[in-house]
């Protein structure tokens, strides 16, 4: 027993991991102590763990995403340290392989995705004048499955070992024959668990946006961020089932001995690559389109102008979404497909540049004849344009299959997708977070610290990734844990850049703490002179969002309201508001799924089977739950609104 725990269950023999174990234990003890000492358990349970309020769920998503950004960032720094000089002995190859695998997986699935879904949760219902999402219970469930999926993935590095087959997990390497350890199971089950939540979120937002818009808001009058959320939801609904099936098949291969992708038994390893990228390529657009939405909102708000070419922006996103499903082969041009297939996928890939180019020029057009304010959200949006253009044009270069034979699997590719994902998604999420921050927390983020953090990040980002284009052309492959002497100068530069970049993140996080303490409280509700409905309600936003819902005439609903003097609090039209009750079941059910998944990782069917039964029991309990929520009485609405609007105390 003890032998099993020490040799197989816990990861031993690595000083860094002992350090991590100690810090996990200390942090857990610390959190439990604080919660107990300040008697916060009940508050935490009542206000957050059981919440079905989309705004709180959004905040929890974003906090989790920032924590994962920290984890993925530390992974990145460790990798860059190891690659700074030839023959570094900071990490050995096994450890390095685990770290780049978890870095990729964490950053895409547990950082970018939840960050985006968090912002969607915060902003979309407010932008369309809804009181919540269509399925609030499901929304809470989505969050908790993501959360427990992320936790399952994160414990792997202290319990049982991290997956090390890359975030793409190509078989045969990741298959049962060449990776018999349990570490790969973590990848499969953690992604499966959080994937359930993502799919549910996609359905939830599709229905919310299609069914719950304010009167008068036709599709072509929706704010552009809501449009991006709608298209993203549709991509999620089409793409995620592919991942679910692919993961399930590999789980069967690894745990139950089937032969879908294995070397032996006529399995088809290439099918994994196809299924993975058939999901994985649309996934790239799932994380970039909402960022495009954020940039459109931010640039239009801070240039104080309508969005240039609103309709073209919408159509461009639709075209990008469609194309995202027909380019997956460009991830393996080198797999020996014939010239015909490669030509077809080269051209579809390059075609994505067309709608993307339209969007870039429309953003520039939005600034034309504007009156640009350089607040922090706008800075992130502005930095996006030149940097993303570099990412975009190198993407076109990678799309040229015959040239890609030289770029494939090299640092050229690494540089390209970091230019796209950091300058696109991450800058977009930072822009969105600072932009909606006053709506979420009732105060702005400090502008001065925000600007310092911005410059560190942008400069560090370019120092890190620009040299990597050249490293790729010099022949440096990705995923190598040690470098050749001739690659040293550029690698050293890149590592230095990574630390500057990380400093930017640290300052960003510090700003959250600083702003919470010292920034003046925001009372108007319209912190940036905004244009869409989320700025029409008060800050803090009441849990029912809008006392009365306005009639919408254009895609800049609040701008119109400000011109005509309309308000979202019309005392004569007040009615009791129907709201859903808070539920403990989502977190309990997700926790049971976590236990079942953990059991499956270890082939412990004594835990997995009862876990599965527990999930079914939870579903049964839920189906007999006849609680239809409650109504907020008119008196209470009046009291809340008048207090928030400063009319009476």
């Amino acid at each position, binding site marked *: 027993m003890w032998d099993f725990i020490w040799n197989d269950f816990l990861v031993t023999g690595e000083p860094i991991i002992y350090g991590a174990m100690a810090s996990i234990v200390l942090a857990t003890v610390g959190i439990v102590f604080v919660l107990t000492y300040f008697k916060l358990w009940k508050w935490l349970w009542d206000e957050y763990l059981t919440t079905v309020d989309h705004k709180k769920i959004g905040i929890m998503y974003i906090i989790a995403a920032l924590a994962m950004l920290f984890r993925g960032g530390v992974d990145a720094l460790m990798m860059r340290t190891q690659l700074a000089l030839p023959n570094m*002995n900071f990490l050995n190859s*096994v450890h390095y*392989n685990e770290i780049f695998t978890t870095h990729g997986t964490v950053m895409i699935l547990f950082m970018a995705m939840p960050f985006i879904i968090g912002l969607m949760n915060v902003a979309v219902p407010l932008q369309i004048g809804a009181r919540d999402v269509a399925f609030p219970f499901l929304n809470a469930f989505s969050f908790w499955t993501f959360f427990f999926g992320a936790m399952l993935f994160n414990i792997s590095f202290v319990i049982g070992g991290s997956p090390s087959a890359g975030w793409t997990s190509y078989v045969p390497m990741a298959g049962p*024959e060449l*990776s018999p350890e349990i570490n790969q199971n973590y990848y499969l089950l953690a992604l499966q668990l959080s994937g359930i939540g993502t799919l549910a979120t996609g359905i939830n937002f599709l229905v919310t946006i299609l069914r719950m818009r304010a009167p008068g808001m036709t599709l072509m009058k929706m704010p552009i961020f809501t449009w991006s959320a709608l298209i993203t939801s549709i991509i999620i609904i089409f793409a995620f089932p592919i991942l679910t099936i692919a993961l399930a098949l590999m789980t069967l291969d690894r745990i139950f001995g089937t032969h879908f992708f294995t*070397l032996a038994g006529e399995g088809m390893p290439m099918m994994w690559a196809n299924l993975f990228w058939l999901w994985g390529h649309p996934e790239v657009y799932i994380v970039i389109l909402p960022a495009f939405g954020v940039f459109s909102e931010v640039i239009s708000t801070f240039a104080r102008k309508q969005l240039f070419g609103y309709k073209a922006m919408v159509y461009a996103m639709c075209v990008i979404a469609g194309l995202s499903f027909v380019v997956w082969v460009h991830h393996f041009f080198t797999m020996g497909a014939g010239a015909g297939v490669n030509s077809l996928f080269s051209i579809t890939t390059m075609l994505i540049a067309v709608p993307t180019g339209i969007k870039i020029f429309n953003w520039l057009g939005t600034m034309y004849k504007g009156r640009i304010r350089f607040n922090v959200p706008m800075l992130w949006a502005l930095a996006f344009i030149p940097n993303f*253009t570099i990412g975009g044009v190198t993407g076109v270069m990678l799309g040229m299959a015959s040239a890609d034979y030289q770029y494939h699997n090299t640092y050229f590719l690494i540089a390209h997708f970091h230019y796209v994902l950091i300058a696109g998604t991450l800058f977009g999420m930072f822009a969105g977070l600072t932009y909606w921050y006053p709506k979420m927390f009732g105060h702005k983020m400090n502008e001065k610290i925000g600007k310092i953090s911005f410059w560190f990040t942008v400069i560090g980002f370019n120092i890190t990734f620009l040299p990597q284009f050249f490293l790729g052309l010099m022949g440096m492959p990705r995923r190598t844990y040690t470098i050749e002497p001739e690659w040293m100068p550029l690698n050293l530069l890149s590592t230095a850049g990574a630390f500057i970049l990380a400093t930017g993140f640290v300052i960003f996080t510090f700003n959250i703490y600083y702003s919470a303490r010292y920034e003046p409280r925001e009372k108007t509700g319209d912190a940036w002179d905004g244009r869409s409905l989320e700025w029409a309600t008060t800050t803090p936003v009441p849990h029912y969002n809008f006392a009365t819902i306005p009639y919408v005439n254009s895609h800049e609903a609040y701008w119109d309201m400000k011109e005509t003097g309309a308000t979202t609090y019309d005392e004569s039209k007040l009615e009791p508001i129907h709201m859903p009750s808070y539920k403990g079941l989502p977190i309990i059910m997700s926790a049971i799924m976590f236990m079942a998944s953990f059991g499956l990782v270890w082939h412990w069917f004594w835990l997995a089977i009862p876990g599965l039964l527990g999930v079914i029991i939870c579903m049964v309990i839920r189906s007999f739950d006849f609680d239809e929520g409650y109504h907020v009485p008119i008196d209470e609405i009046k009291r809340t609104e008048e207090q928030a609007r400063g009319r009476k105390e």
Partner: protein
Amino acid sequence: MKNLVSWFKRLFMVPGLFALLLVASGCSGITVLDPKGPVARTQQELIIFSITLMSVIVIVVFVLFFYMIIRFRERPNWTDKDYDPHQHGNTTLEIIWTVIPFIIVAALSVPTVTSLYALESPPEETNDQEPLVIHADTSNWKWYFSYPEQDIETVNYLHIPENRPIEFKLASADSMTALWIPALGGQKYNMAGMQNTLYLQADEEGEFAGRNANYNGSGFAEHTFTVTSESEEEFNQWVSDVQNNAPEMTKDRFDQYLEPGLAQEAEYSSTHLEYVDFGMNSGRSYITDLYGGNLGEQLHLEGGEGGPWEEE
């Protein structure tokens, strides 16, 4: 088609040369842009062409971007003269910036497609010669180069004659890998149970670095080989040396090689293709049948330090 390509090439010659100068002077030692054979040259030309075209786009966007943020920024002596909040689109402009990218994509597609078809067969310059066939097989983390005509095999190094096309037959015994010799041309995957063909050629004598470019676990960084390109006579001399002096690649020895681990360079006077061809469907579970469940235990090469064959 051909005319179109050369027209485009001429059109972008001037900025192309400029970009080339910039790149070549700033960072000599950029292997991919310093080709040593016709395949790599085709790819290098395509890369330079695309870099040129893309630089134009980047410059246009950058110029417009800085113009907008400087011209329309809010500044102390601001007047409403240039401010038009209701300006929300311009159909002509939008059509222009939709059509131009289409033209650019077309401009890039033509040379991409022509070169894709060209790379499917041996380089045109030397099509009077029969390509030299080399089977390049991998298992964790070794390269086996079999020369079926010469009936010899090398481990982790390669000799090729200059100015003659090489037809690589790629396959893998286990994980997916990729044969990449950046100086000679781009990579292609080695996979179990499948055979890929890759044509490369060296125009000059010399030593080039080759490697597996697709991640395959612990020993990935060490999964490299050297390529020696030499004159026809020297190559033939080397072949007969190996044929006469090297030991045979017996089945037992080869099975031992298949165990995960690193190996030193070696040569043999027969090939493993006599026992197993990983490029055939029948050969793809050879290694798992041989080592079964024990294979995985060998896969953790500690920090890439040596394997069972290090001492030999």
